[in-house]
């Protein structure tokens, strides 16, 4: 099969999906057809899917490398995205440069897709800076650690876009746990009231640290949004193609004045909450095993192989490329410089603050005392 032909569903044996759970590639790598969502990815070629596959491999590789760096004492902490690669890559790769992302701490694959430089992903986790990058260079705010706060920011940004008469969209990434916070619910009210071009992209990875999603929601999370007047999509978050289709449909609605969309990407956090966490205290290994079988990478690989797009040779070269990126990532991490002591006083205010200026000069005198 020519790799430039669009990745079409094979009608034979394809199972009709209900709109409630969008899946275009099943865990075995079979392409399912979906009347509503197929059109959104009808232009995706085998080569393009292979390129998404490469992204998935690379982000998993750097995520693993970051965990290793933490274990070796080079990072204070790392929140692995292991298992959530498709949800992040599939959505982030559909955005335009002028769109804007507001994320939480786990969206390192989103940041990678937005073009954040590798060492910039690590500054915060190595403790050398309060944030990693310039939001306006990559169209992505630096992550919110306060759960859910960024959803309101995304809403405000989107309202600003409508005021400015541009068709840029903002995307809020957050977790299943976050949906319990007041901020997230307020964001949905505001977004609906102002018909804001915002996408609420919830990665339901089944856990908020040790708490299962069942503690946050008694029904699928996607069911909540319609009550706010926001259409929602429940998508297989481990299916990169379905995530792409869902995000494209939401982007289209936002760009054409249709307002917000809520996407629940159903996925699984295969690693610990962070490197400080001990999931053996609360994860049932049998359930974890079930999710392993729904891995986001294996199914793309199976599909691309069945289509003849992915050869052993290509797979090996992608792996080699991922190793290269990981090596660059590690070197970038080790090269990060420690901040200057007096920089502790920098950037608190946009303009000079007399009280702080005084503290700074006193601390400077104090430090100089050690040289005497």
């Amino acid at each position, binding site marked *: 099969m020519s790799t430039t032909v669009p990745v079409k569903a094979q009608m034979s044996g394809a199972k009709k999906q209900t709109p409630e759970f969008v899946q275009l590639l099943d865990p075995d790598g079979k392409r399912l057809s979906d009347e509503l969502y197929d059109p959104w990815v009808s232009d995706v070629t085998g080569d393009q899917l292979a390129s998404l596959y490469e992204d998935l491999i690379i982000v998993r590789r750097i995520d693993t490398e970051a965990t290793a760096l933490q274990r070796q004492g080079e990072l204070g902490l790392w929140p692995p995205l292991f298992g959530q690669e498709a949800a992040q890559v599939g959505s982030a790769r559909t955005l335009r440069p002028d769109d804007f992302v507001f994320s939480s701490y786990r969206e390192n694959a989103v940041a990678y897709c937005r073009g954040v430089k590798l060492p910039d992903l690590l500054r915060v986790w190595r403790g050398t800076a309060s944030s990693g990058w310039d939001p306006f260079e990559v169209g992505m705010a630096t992550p919110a650690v306060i759960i859910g706060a960024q959803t309101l920011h995304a809403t405000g940004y989107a309202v600003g876009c409508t005021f400015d008469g541009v068709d840029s969209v903002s995307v809020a990434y957050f977790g299943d746990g976050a949906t319990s916070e007041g901020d997230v619910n307020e964001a949905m009210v505001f977004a609906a009231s102002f018909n804001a071009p915002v996408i609420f992209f919830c990665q339901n990875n089944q856990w908020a640290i040790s708490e299962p999603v069942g503690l946050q929601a008694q029904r699928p999370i996607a069911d909540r949004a319609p009550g706010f007047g926001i259409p929602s999509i429940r998508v297989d978050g481990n299916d990169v193609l379905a995530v792409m289709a869902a995000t494209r449909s939401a982007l289209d609605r936002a760009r054409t004045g249709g307002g917000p969309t809520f996407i629940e990407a159903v996925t699984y956090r295969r690693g610990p909450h962070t490197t400080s966490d001990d999931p053996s205290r609360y994860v049932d290994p049998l359930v974890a095993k079930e999710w392993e079988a729904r891995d986001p990478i294996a199914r793309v690989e199976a599909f691309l192989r069945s289509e003849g797009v992915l050869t052993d040779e290509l797979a090996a070269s992608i792996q080699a490329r991922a190793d290269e990126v990981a090596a660059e990532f590690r070197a970038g991490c080790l090269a990060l410089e420690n901040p200057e002591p*007096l920089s502790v*006083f920098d950037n608190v205010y946009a303009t000079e603050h007399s009280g702080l200026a005084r503290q700074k000069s006193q601390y400077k005198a104090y430090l100089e005392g050690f040289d005497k």
Partner: protein
Amino acid sequence: MTELTLAKALGSGLRRALSDDDKVVLLGEDIGTLGGVFRVTDGLQRDFGKDRVIDTPLAEAGIIGMAVGLAFRGYRPVCEIQFDGFIYPGFDQIVAQVAKLHYRTAGKVRMPLTIRVPYGGGIGAVEHHSESPEAYFAHTAGLRVVTCSTPQDAHSMLREAIASDDPVLFFEPKRRYWTKGEVDEDATALPMGKARVVTEGTDVTLVTYGPLVATALDAAVAAADDGISIEVVDLRSLSPVDFDTVSASVRKTGRLVITHEAAESGGIGAEIAATLTDRCFYYLEAAPVRITGFDVPYPAAKLEDHFLPDLDRILDGVDRALGRVNSLTGWSA
């Protein structure tokens, strides 16, 4: 007597409170199955059940607000805020409701909540995990604010806080969670509202609380080598402050240094300095000195040593109080 870490002493305090009073319920994120991110509540859900040790949805306003309702119903809720920096979504419920309900209802409604907050820095954490927000709460009428520095105090003060009919903000010095000490569950404890003179001295009174008590004690030892005698006072309660104990010390030494991790402006140190200046004006030989975190957001981990008061900065402050050569010698105000 058993030797326990401060975290385990808190856990044993919670365990006793749960056994002694069946109206005590624990609420928080990850406190049940996981036993809390610091394992303070380890084993409590297993032993007391899911109705008494409650894993809540992820919402701090929800935790505090639901505790208010439980208190209306006669319960004695103990809320865990996972980290200092995550208390703010619950701030409105604490300041506008918890603190004021007793006043608003002319004493008809009691709010016997305890809100446990791991606080302070020094653990190399990312943003929002190292803050010291105690002054916001000490500034709020209707709340009692306490903090502990030893395993024994952790245990006894927590039980007293839970038994209190007023709401108590209970700040736990997280970098001292692993400090070990003897704990006697049945000891007659110093009431939580009282300050403690931890080590006696004659030259300078060094007032502190929570995580910096250990640092202050190190400073006292180091200063002794220089022939300076420091009296360390552990405040324990930040609202009310036991000014009698602090005044008695300052009347003896004539010099006052206050140290805390929280920022200087509008902080607990400012309150101590002002009140002691008022109460001990004629006894003071020098202006009170504050050694605190700077007026900046808690910085990145690699900068925290340039934010937190440490032994050297405290000793520099002691030199200032004593009029010895110090970093500000020759400084023009």
